[in-house]
């Protein structure tokens, strides 16, 4: 598993974490290359379905990050997001989806270093846990596989 390079997708808000990641850049803080950032106006905009879609498209880990409480550029988007994540995380965990792969964080525009650490930590952690295939594999339809699972009831 040593050559496993995880795919990490980050959903970040434009004002805090995206800017924080920019700051990490201007500060030349080096971190793992496995991360791909998708920019949102606010964590409040982040649809929980996108997290599922990210796993479907092959992400091994997800970072969702926005402004610290009280710092939201739009006042309260992060608070609403926080509640959403509480519910979502509980539900996923109940369904046995590996919630260790989703990291929620607050990274402010000033926390370039925190961003760098966070990415490295997540990448290291996911490297330890290994690739996440069980969710994305759910979409696999075996050709002509009546017995393997395409029958009325799949086992």
């Amino acid at each position, binding site marked *: 598993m040593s050559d496993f390079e995880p795919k990490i997708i980050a959903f970040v808000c434009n004002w805090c974490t995206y800017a924080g990641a920019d700051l990490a850049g201007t500060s030349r803080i080096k971190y793992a290359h496995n991360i791909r950032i998708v920019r949102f106006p606010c964590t409040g905009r982040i649809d929980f379905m996108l997290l599922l879609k990210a796993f479907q498209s092959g992400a091994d880990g997800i970072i969702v990050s926005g402004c610290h409480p009280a710092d939201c550029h739009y006042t309260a988007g992060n608070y609403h997001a926080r509640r959403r994540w509480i519910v979502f995380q509980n539900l996923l965990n109940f369904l046995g989806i590996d919630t260790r792969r989703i990291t929620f964080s607050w990274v402010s525009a000033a926390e370039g270093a925190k961003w760098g650490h966070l990415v490295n930590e997540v990448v290291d952690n996911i490297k330890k846990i290994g690739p996440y295939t069980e969710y994305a594999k759910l979409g696999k339809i075996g*050709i*002509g596989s009546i017995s393997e699972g395409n029958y*009325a009831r799949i086992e």
Partner: protein
Amino acid sequence: MKILSGKIMNYKTLKIDNLDLFFNEIKKSGKNLLVPKKKGKTTYFSSFININDVEFNYIQTTISPKSALFPKVEELISFKKDDGTYVVTEPSIEKETIVFGLRPCDAVGLEYLSNFFLNEKSDFTVRLRKENTTLITLACKNFDENCFCTSVGLSPASIKGSDICLTDIGNGLFYAEIITDKGEKLIAEHSALFSNAEKINKESYVAQVPLKFDSDNLIKNIKNYYNSEKWTINSLPCLGCGACAFVCPTCTCFNIEDEANPVCGTRLRCWDSCAFGIFTLHASGHNPRPIQSNRWRHRVLHKFGYSVTNMDTLSCVGCGRCIRVCPAGMNIIEQILDLQEA
């Protein structure tokens, strides 16, 4: 309209105690054996693992065995980008499948279903599945208030569509009617388990399902029913889910979905239901069947009218699954009786 006919090639008996052996031999031969299983209130077909998992105590399985020919999702083609070019793969269905325990009405249903897919333009995957599937029917000993096979010209003794039909004749014996070459071939592979037998009269061993309505009369008058106001009243409870269609052995509607990205993808066929509001929704926003009563009418008329016109046969086999599964207690028998009453 009687569709009871079918030529019987041979008669055998099978000790019920040998069923376990029979199943295990089939399993060992590498074929796929589907048997009824039960989970909670649901009976369904699933791969044989152990005789103890096999459910024998059912009037009718909740889910029809149509998946054997027409699964809820199946891949039609898949593609994959390889060195800059796209490689397309078509499905190949080679594994032989044996379905055990479907009811005589189901066998007729599957025959209708395969005729539908193979009639004019042969459907590739259904044809492959049909060729590779052997149906071992289990004649009904019991029935419930939702069974109405006799009202649509069938009976628990029907052998149409079956490859082998088993009837429990007591004394720990199944009476086996071998109807097709496929059935003959399967018996031959396990000949040690079967003893030769004479033709017997099955009627006394199978359930006597009462007649609920007169289908000949229904077919004759069906054109007059289109504008009946009974559709609206009777469909008020209908909530527009697809349960009835999905458990029905003869519902053939499907939807084609492409799941793809620029690198790889598949084209999938999956079940669809005329009960869904968006089933007939046009891109323009117009919906020719805008309300649920229209959809309900369409489903009933299709079973008893349109399929008679198009395929010269009813597409309802009286299995009663749609009645048992309906969340809102919709009952096709009630609807037909109401129509005939008017």
